[in-house]
């Protein structure tokens, strides 16, 4: 049986792991390779590396980091942040990443999804959607959640699927950082709407949040950052817990 995936996310700045507190007060939290290795040991199913600076000057730093990660890590990993073109993707994939995630750049120019899928295959393209509930419903936000767009989340997810996305990474800004659980409503809507794997992100605080996510939505993966990073939830314990709740997970 296909297992539900548990995915830790690492924020990267200038080739280092960073930890942000509500998008401010970002501080250095060590070498990404060390943390990535720890997660692999603990039984993470995949890793996501998000370059939160993503400026042109930092591209080379990111590419050399991806190269180092690929040499050390023997599970799949996705790299996102500032990917604007097929050339950007080519450098990241050639360095050894399995997938790239695109967010604002795909909203700005949706054809980018198709271009990447045509060149590298759908399985390489994760479309990351930052969503927030507004008066009109769940809408897409870009630029790290700072900019509201006209797009409804459901419509954008469908469009991404049509253009060749291989996966959706759905982050609820309402839930992110709250530790009060995943955004079940929009996760369920999106995972019912598209026939793609959906990674739910934002809001995980306790082990039970993952159980509820997998029992009430069709999400195939749950992503979190700080709770894993700060050892509030140990991945191995989380998986043991989910297994006792009859949720299929990979246990080492």
């Amino acid at each position, binding site marked *: *049986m*296909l*297992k*539900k*995936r548990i995915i830790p996310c690492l924020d990267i700045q200038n080739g280092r792991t960073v930890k942000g507190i509500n998008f401010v007060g970002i501080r250095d939290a060590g070498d990404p390779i060390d943390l990535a290795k720890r997660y*692999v040991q603990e039984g993470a*199913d995949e890793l996501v590396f998000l370059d939160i600076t993503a400026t042109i000057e930092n591209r080379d730093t990111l590419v050399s980091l991806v190269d180092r990660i*690929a*040499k050390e890590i*023997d*599970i*799949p990993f996705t790299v996102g942040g500032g990917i604007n073109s097929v050339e950007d993707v080519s450098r990241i*994939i*050639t*360095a*050894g990443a*399995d997938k790239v995630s695109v967010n604002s750049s795909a909203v700005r120019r949706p054809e980018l999804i198709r271009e990447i899928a045509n060149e*590298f*295959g*759908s*399985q*390489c393209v994760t479309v990351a959607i930052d969503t927030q509930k507004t008066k009109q419903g769940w809408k897409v936000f870009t630029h790290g959640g700072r900019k509201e767009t006209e797009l409804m989340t459901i419509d954008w997810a469908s469009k991404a699927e049509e253009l060749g996305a*291989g*996966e959706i990474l759905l982050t609820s800004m309402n839930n992110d950082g709250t530790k009060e659980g995943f955004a079940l409503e929009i996760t369920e809507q999106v995972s019912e709407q598209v*026939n*793609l*794997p959906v990674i739910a992100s934002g809001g995980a605080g306790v082990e039970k949040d993952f159980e509820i996510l997998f029992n009430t939505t*069709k999400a*195939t*993966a749950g992503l979190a950052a700080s709770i894993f990073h700060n050892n509030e939830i140990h991945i191995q314990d989380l998986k043991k817990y989910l297994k006792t709740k009859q949720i299929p997970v*990979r246990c*080492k």
Partner: protein
Amino acid sequence: MIAIIKYNAGNTCSVQNALERLGYETIITDNEEELQKADKVIFPGVGEASTAMTYLRDRGLDQVILRLKQPVLGICLGLQLMCEASEEGDVSCLGIFKSKVYKFPNTEITPHMGWNDFTDLKGVLMKGLKKTNDVYFVHNYYADLSNETTAVCNYIKPFSAALEKDNFYATQFHPEKSADIGEKILKNFLDL
């Protein structure tokens, strides 16, 4: 020396990294002499079947692969290209394995992405593996079952997770991305 076949759909980097972690020397090449000289040959692949087959045929690489005598391991698209034919681009493939390759019905979530297990294990590649072991899959197309199937995975329907015939071996999953279990399978191949 382990040769990795160089072509337009090879994710050579991950395979190369995995082999180097195991302490093997690798060469990425499309040169027949170099391929023939290698102890083992790996045929990786991520991409589209008909584009890849056209590339291989244009360069005569299809015949080169068929002539190889040492153990050859196809991975993911590599496995599919070693089959009889693929629905992806409606193309005839290398015909090493009698399986045909079909698209998963899109009534379910595709691609089949993530860790899954297998049953009906046999053959040397899967030696020492257990039904409870999970390996990493990511694919939209699958090879159907035959008597060459050495591991069966079930997603939407049962399909060939691994195949073996003579000196040819193949896995639909990615051993190079399947942590310690994947390493064990690669070692089984490298120890042949």
